[in-house]
């Protein structure tokens, strides 16, 4: 059992708020990703969980115990650092055994656990090497082993894959997820890479400017973003700003002269809104139709598996639609229709 409870946690530096009144519950054995752009407060949050930073206000509970004032060495957490932070003057075995020796375990058990953990991370036979003699991916595994060998209740990872090349990153991603599942350990994973968050985590907590924007699984975050920031940050979106017009059962956003049908849960008539539509929620038409807008200066960008159709509209500005790879532009004009668009209150604007 290992649950984490962050209750109204805030942390500010001189003139900025790094984390603003953050509350988050992490369930036992859950893998939660803290996702956001750099400077969003995700690393500060992680370091508060580890005990390196003391929050200005709020509480941190692990299994119901208040650990807000407990120093890192007495917290049941283990952290994997972005730079791995392996001790260069110790061998791999000594790096992993350090914490075990501090706990005065008998030598045979120390050796035993060290060897076993190296097997778990898939790196047997490097015990006597020094960290500098290992590749980046191997160092990563040693750092993971060093954190896991102490049997922590909570595993904390701070952008652990950002120093690896793209191919290795994907492999380590699966590897970390496999190990997490195998050991059934509650995990908090900080990343700015949405692909990592979407593929690895049970739930994703999106942060921006110190504020928790939304917590949910990959589908929630992608399909039902809670704020315009989330809609823009996860995947890509066409963003328009306009005014909400409610009429009976339908809602439209008035953007300049144009009107776009939108989903707007609970927003009042006349509210200033930001409209977000995914490129895959744009229908491409070859002929004019009601609700369709002509795309000016259309051009195609090839992504291999699919293409993106880019262009402009006088009221909306830049627009983007995802089209099959066989799609080609001819001389005739193309039209876009919003098949699904969501409206968010523009008050979120200063949050994003």
């Amino acid at each position, binding site marked *: 059992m290992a649950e984490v409870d962050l209750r109204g946690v805030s942390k500010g530096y001189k003139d900025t708020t790094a984390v603003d009144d953050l509350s988050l519950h992490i369930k036992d054995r859950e893998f939660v990703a803290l996702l956001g752009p750099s400077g969003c407060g995700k690393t500060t949050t992680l370091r508060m969980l*580890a005990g390196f930073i003391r929050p200005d206000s709020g509480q941190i509970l692990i299994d119901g115990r208040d650990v807000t004032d407990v120093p*890192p*060495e007495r917290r049941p957490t283990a*952290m994997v650092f972005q730079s791995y*932070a392996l001790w*260069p*003057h110790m061998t791999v075995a000594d790096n992993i055994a*350090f914490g075990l020796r*501090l706990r005065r375990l008998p030598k045979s058990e120390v050796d035993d656990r060290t060897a076993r953990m190296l097997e778990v991370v898939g790196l047997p036979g490097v015990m006597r090497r020094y960290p500098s003699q290992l590749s980046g991916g191997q160092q990563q595994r040693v750092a993971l082993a060093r954190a896991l060998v*102490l049997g922590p209740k909570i595993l904390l990872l701070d952008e652990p894959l950002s120093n690896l090349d793209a191919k290795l990153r994907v492999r380590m991603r699966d590897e970390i997820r496999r190990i997490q599942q195998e050991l059934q350990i509650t995990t908090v994973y900080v990343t700015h890479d949405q692909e990592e968050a979407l593929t690895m985590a049970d739930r994703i907590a999106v942060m921006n400017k110190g504020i928790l924007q939304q917590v949910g699984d990959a589908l929630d975050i992608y399909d039902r973003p809670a704020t315009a920031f989330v809609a823009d940050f996860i995947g890509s979106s066409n963003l328009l700003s306009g005014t909400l017009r409610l009429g009976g059962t339908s809602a439209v956003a008035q953007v300049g002269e144009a009107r776009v049908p939108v989903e707007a849960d609970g927003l009042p008539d006349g509210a200033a809104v930001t409209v977000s539509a995914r490129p895959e929620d744009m229908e491409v038409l070859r002929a004019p139709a009601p609700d369709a807008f002509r795309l000016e200066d259309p051009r195609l960008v090839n992504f291999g598996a699919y293409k993106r159709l880019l262009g402009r509209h006088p009221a909306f500005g830049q627009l983007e639609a995802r089209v099959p790879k066989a799609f080609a532009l001819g001389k005739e004009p193309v039209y876009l229709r919003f098949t699904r668009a969501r409206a968010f209150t523009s008050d979120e604007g200063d949050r994003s």
Partner: protein
Amino acid sequence: MAAQVPALPAIRLTWWIDDPRIRRMLLRLFAAALAVFIGIPLLTLVLWSFAGEWFWPNLIPSQWSLRWWQEVLENPRVTNAMFLSFTIAPVVTLLTALVAIPAGYAFARLDVPFRRTLLLLFLIPNAFPRIGLYVSLAVLYYQIGLIDTYWGIVFLHMIGTMVYMTWITTATFRSIDPHLEEAARDAGASPLRAFFSVVLPLAMPGIIVASLFSFLASVDEAQGTLIVGTPHYITMPVLLYTLISSFQRPVAAVFSVLLALPSLLLLIVAQRYLHSEYVAAGLGRV
């Protein structure tokens, strides 16, 4: 639309550095100059210390002798001075390290108020003519009874060595990734334990270099020691001054060689240590 930006001709005044032949030649020239300027005076010293008879225009002594060595080593004043020098220097180094290592760590890691000012403060003794400082220190020593005492000399030497130690250790500690220390805390080490298990071993090369400088500076210090240590506490360089003024050149040469020996030995030891594996791996940043 896009304006054609003409390629600028590359103007480099250091083109000759790129030529491997010229570079090799310059390197050799530099090594030769170093050998001439440092090696020849040292060699002359060694020759003089073993010279029985050496008159102009002979390039090397016409007669060899261990007479001067014998004379120096059998002189109780000399052996006393040697003994004193080598009992002062380790104590100075140790005491300096005890103060400078925590200070350096604090300067590097903690949010010390007026950090820059404090660091500059350490340099102040070097900003003035040393002799003035020593004279006023001697006046102070008279008042508090430290004049002509062992500890009086130790404290005087520490004025100089504190600078090396604090500056070098500050730079060393700052080059060590703080995450390494945090990782130790995370694994269950207390702050003190993290310092001794992770930070100190990684800082060792810097600390050893700083200690070396301190040790040599202490062995070498003559001006201040002469002022506050006479008449009872005569160290090697102080004695050397008196020997030079009495114009016994071979004796002075023997003495200089004796003074140079610890530096040489320590440098060789330090070089071996500094080449060890983990230092090569980079100071903490892997």
